[in-house]
């Protein structure tokens, strides 16, 4: 067998049924949408969707890394908000603050992620619990910091440019950023020792540990990365809206988890491809878009979300039967 055909087979295998189903659903949604309005298939609409999807895509990338380890990051809402608020806050401190706004926001996210990582990897607290707690603490810190009001600081020009500008005409910067992060993630997962270790730990942490992998450091790093990516998502969202807001991250937790899981990544860890996450992110974004275009109220959107996720999970996300 030649190397090329082996590679090709490897690629085909990564297209597991879940990823194909997700892409199938995307096509289905577009077709359904086009019955409602012709504009659903127009390049402008699709590009706009891609732009909206990018924010979720960046956040879901971090979530995927953590889910691949068999963990979960529930601190997304306030990590997003912290990243956004801290970046905006830094902007108030003169030119230096303005320059360092974006890295500072991301750094705050990495800090939250590191905290999560230490709790999960070194203290062995279930990730669900420790990330819920850090989410609460981050919220508490932000409430104290902002005095309970929406922060008055506004986003820097750089943040606005990244989120709304277009370096290459026609392609929004944020799409470009997502593509870069995505490419880096694919490289990380497929070509580096870190990526192999992530899959290994997700499959069987015990076996990975006994193989001499420093599992704790890798778990901690993954959480830090997830925190950093969430915060970066927050920074971009603040740029998009020109300022940060108290509950700006709430709308990203469920969609991020849903995107990762709908894209075929096992919630138990160890299995999943980034392509699937991309599909999941686009699928969720389109679903949201169509629900809002059809004037579906928030209540209906929540219900449809929940039901769609459960149905898709029942289709292919089930644990094997015990007997």
């Amino acid at each position: 067998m030649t190397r090329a055909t082996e590679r090709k087979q490897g690629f085909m295998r990564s297209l597991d049924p879940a990823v194909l189903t997700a892409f199938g659903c995307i096509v289905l949604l577009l077709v359904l949408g086009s019955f409602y309005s012709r504009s659903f298939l127009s390049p402008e609409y699709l590009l706009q969707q891609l732009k909206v999807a990018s924010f979720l895509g960046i956040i879901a990338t971090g979530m995927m890394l953590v889910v691949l380890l068999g963990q979960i990051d529930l601190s997304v809402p306030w990590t997003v908000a912290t990243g956004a608020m801290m970046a905006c806050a830094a902007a108030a401190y003169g030119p230096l603050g303005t320059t360092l706004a974006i890295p500072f926001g991301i750094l705050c996210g990495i800090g939250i992620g590191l905290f999560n990582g230490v709790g999960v990897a070194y203290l062995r607290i279930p990730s669900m619990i420790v990330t819920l707690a850090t989410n609460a603490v981050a919220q508490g810190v932000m409430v104290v910091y902002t005095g309970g009001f929406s922060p008055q600081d506004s986003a820097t020009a750089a943040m606005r440019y990244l989120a709304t500008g277009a370096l290459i005409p026609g392609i929004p910067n944020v799409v470009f950023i997502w593509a870069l992060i995505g490419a880096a993630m694919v490289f990380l997962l497929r070509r580096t020792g870190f990526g192999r270790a992530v899959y290994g730990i997700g499959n069987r942490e015990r076996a990975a540990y006994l193989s001499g992998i420093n599992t704790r450091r890798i778990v901690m790093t993954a959480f830090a990365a997830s925190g950093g990516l969430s915060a970066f998502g927050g920074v971009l969202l603040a740029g998009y809206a020109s300022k940060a807001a108290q509950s700006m991250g709430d709308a990203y937790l469920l969609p991020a988890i849903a995107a990762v899981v709908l894209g075929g990544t096992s919630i138990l860890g160890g299995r999943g491809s980034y392509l699937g996450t991309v599909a999941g992110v686009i699928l969720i974004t389109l679903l949201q878009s169509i629900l809002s275009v059809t004037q579906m109220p928030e209540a209906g959107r929540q219900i449809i979300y929940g039901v769609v996720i459960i149905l898709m999970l029942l289709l292919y996300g089930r644990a094997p039967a015990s007997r």
Partner: protein
Amino acid sequence: MENGGPLFRMEGISKRYGGVRALENAGLSVRAGAIHAVLGENGAGKSTLIKIMAGVVAADEGQMTLDAQPVKFASPAAANAAGIACVFQELSLIPELSVADNIVISNPPTRFGMIDRKAQRRIAEEALARAGAADIHPLALVKDLPLSRKQIVEIAKALARKPRILILDEATSALTAADVSKVFAVLKRLRAEGLALVYISHRMNEIAELADDCTVFRNGSKVASYAAGTRSDAEVIEMMIGREYHSVYPPKPGRLAQIAPVLETRNLSWADRLHDISFSLRSGEIVGLGGLDGQGQRDLLLALFGVLRGLRGTVLVDGSPISIGSPAQARRHGIGMALIPEDRKTEGLMQPMTVRDNLSLASLDRLTRGGIIDRAKEESAINQMMTLLAIKAGNIDAPVGALSGGNQQKVVIAKWLMRQPRIILLNDPTRGIDVGTKQEIYLLLRRLADEGAAILFYSTDYAELIGCCDRVLVLYDGTVKRELAGAEITERALIASALNIPSAEPTQREPAQ
């Protein structure tokens, strides 16, 4: 009762797991008031047979009759209801519940829909007394009991169901000698009370003491049934292995040069599991770890590999004392240690990942440059290992779980050999794999030793220890009871020292004239 027909009978039982045949046209017939010993090598199908009997798994084919009536058990509960209770090898106790809760678990006494705690306590105390363990407190949590006591609770739990047939699967393997004799007394009393007992054990002396009837299994089929005492041990062993078992092992090099040891321990102790273990391991040598299962062999290997915390005593590599805090440190260049773990499903392999990913997992540090995998290097290292171990995998990008058990075990070994370890620790590496692969592994071990590796080899199969090892350390209750070398390594010596029987050596020397 004496000469009535069999109480329970199984005929033509077949069971497959995936493509692997566990039982083929097997049968068993037990009578009341007798102890029926089931013998066979590991993987001969004994465990599957009793799981079918106890309703844990369903047979693919075959019939079972109880009191000459055909029966079928859809679940363990159904088998219980029919009067069959089983003491499983892997404990079936709920760790967070109390002893009393566990004993009555399948059928607790209730009042007004709630569990009657007083009645429960009474039943538990009665069952514990019947199992010869009235000293266990019914309110103690199971997780707080030592393994040996848990096993007794397990027996009490089975007795509380008032069974007609009691199955014991390696029920004594975790027991201390004092508990074993208690359990034997209990079993004999139960026999006198008219129960049918099915007893699975690897220990010939236990069978000689207890059994009335024996059935030997090999490769999933029944070889023979006979009344206890009508066959010699040699005949029985011959039936179990069904072949001359010396030929499969490579020749030993004989006396080894007395060079400085690569690995040495002095008074190594850990918790209450390992006590003052001192031994040395030289390059080119295969040292076996013997003894009954669960006497600290596994803990010793884990201790050496840096997994256990709170070790006391000294570990020396190349003569200098070191402390190893994790497998990552153990595999480092200066030490070069590898551990082939006990359970390849949970400790050795990531079943859903590809053969390629599994093979490189222990060597990622060597196959990457700046964190990025060097694919050419990985490819050549993998190819080398595939050839060296003759791993039969259609496609190295297929999940390792799809390979046969033997080939999976080869992958576990290969993944470590890729690092060219100097010290190789093996934890029962041939369990549950086919004879052909076993033989390949024996040859490989000897070859690695000849090339300079130091090998510490724990096996539950005495024949392997005899056939492969230059020396054998026999562990009993966490300490080295005896060290056998060269021609001293005989089955008799191994069993005697494993059971800690001081002078069970055959009378080799004639009394001096």
